[in-house]
């Protein structure tokens, strides 16, 4: 019987890094037969890195985020998400990959008929979590984001800021390998904004790759992060930082 060396059974730090890496190479994207909204996008997100995605309206930020959270396929180029070829991956394999990504949508996209607690619990349920554990985790997180007394409220009865916090809680509850947030602090007061940014930073510390699309230049000053700056569908050096990550 053959024996295996330690290196063969224990993944190295480098191999783990590659496994959780996100890589775009010469990516182009178009909707239908229209012109390309993203062109020659090339970048790499190392595991546990923190990134801001900036750019004027219509620059292609939302399209780039869609590629990142696997809601769209590129029209050309290579996309590797967590080391896997997401551009050409079989459809049936995508859900498992999506469950490793948390997304905060700009318009929140909460399910109106579910309570705040049930909305936040949804990713854990989809991942097959146990009911009792799910409830404990969700209560703890909702309390942390200041919604302890609003857990049973449905989204239509919550304010914009409260809905945003529920959306963020839903995105982070499953400790995703990558968190994508589109204008996550747009509807909250400065104090809550700082608190949420702290939450993202904490998640980032435990290994989650964070990508935040924002217009708020104030956020860029508060966290040391790489900046991906889009102009007219192309990545260009950021005016807020020395260069493109």
């Amino acid at each position, binding site marked *: 019987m053959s024996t295996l060396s330690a290196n063969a059974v224990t993944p190295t730090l480098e191999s783990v890094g590659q496994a959780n890496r996100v890589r775009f190479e010469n990516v182009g994207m178009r909707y239908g037969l229209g012109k390309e909204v993203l062109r020659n996008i090339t970048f790499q997100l190392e595991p546990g890195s923190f990134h801001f995605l900036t750019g004027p309206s219509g620059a292609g930020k939302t399209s780039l985020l869609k590629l990142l959270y696997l809601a769209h396929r590129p029209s050309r180029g290579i996309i590797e998400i967590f080391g896997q070829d997401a551009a050409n991956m079989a459809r049936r394999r995508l859900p498992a990959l999506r469950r490793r990504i948390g997304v905060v949508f700009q318009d929140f*996209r909460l*399910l109106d*008929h579910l309570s705040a607690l*049930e909305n936040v619990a949804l990713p854990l349920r989809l991942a097959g979590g146990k009911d009792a554990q799910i409830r404990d985790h969700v209560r703890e997180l909702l309390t942390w984001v200041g919604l302890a007394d609003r857990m049973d409220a449905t989204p239509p009865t919550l304010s914009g800021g409260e809905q945003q916090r529920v959306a963020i809680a839903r995105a982070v509850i499953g400790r995703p390998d990558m968190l994508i947030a589109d204008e996550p602090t747009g509807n909250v007061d400065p104090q809550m904004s700082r608190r949420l940014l702290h939450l993202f930073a904490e998640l980032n510390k435990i290994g989650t790759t964070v990508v935040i699309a924002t217009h708020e230049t104030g956020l860029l000053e508060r966290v040391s992060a790489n900046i991906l700056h889009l102009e007219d569908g192309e990545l260009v050096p950021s005016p807020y930082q020395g260069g493109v990550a």
Partner: protein
Amino acid sequence: MILPILKPQFNILPDGARAGGLLPVIIAVMMYMSALSLFAALSLQLGIGTWSRNLDRSFTIQIPADAYDPGTLEDEIAKALKPLLDTTTGVASYEILSTADNKALLETWLGKGNVTDDLPVPALIDVKVSDGSAIDAATLEAALKTFKDARVDGAGTWLSQLRRPALALIANAYFILAVVLIAAVAVVVFGTRAQLAAHRPTIQIVHHMGAEDTVIAKEFQYSFMRLGLIGGAAGTVGALLTLVVLGMTLDGNEDGLLSIMRSTGWAMAAILPLPVLAAILTLITARMTVFHALRQIP
């Protein structure tokens, strides 16, 4: 009891937003028509089989009225016809119909009292064929030719003429059944698509959160299956009631093709599983429709 595997796992769709409305009524009507078509096809199939088997077991020998003398017919038959019939394989028994029997047969067509003594009535000999035997009417007729121009009147010729329209009726009934089932599938497809369209944003959210297609399909298939079961049960009960009423109105009028459709317990039993079939059909259709729709979402 519904298998837990078919039940929705999450409340992705709001209560009351799942399939409902007039859909169960439409499915009930479809299943009502399916039940009647299936019953018609099966009962005709079973009835024609039984009927032709019974008719194949007897035939009639006719002797023209001007070819025999009623007073001596029995003796002549005993001398000339009996040896022939006794040696013919498959003949179980035979009986010469009396004048009174002949009159009664004719009165069915001509009316009571209209059969007078001067009416030329052929002599009839009713021959029974033993079980599992078949007699070639043409060969027997050739052998009988020397006996007073006797003619063999078997059921085969006109039965084959009757079989053709009966088979056409059966084929039509099955065709109607297929058309109704296709229409039922189309209704479920439309219903599922309407539900998918109404809840498209919600479905997109859970899809992008990593919900498997089967998880989303379960949210729809279960409610459609319930509708199929309820509609199927209502349609089948309605069809059974119709058949019971039809059976009661046919009581005492057992002649002709309609009689074939009576006393067909097997055909009645065959429509009983229709609600289950409707449930399975709606479940599979809804599931396939959801899968197809989800494939359109990147």
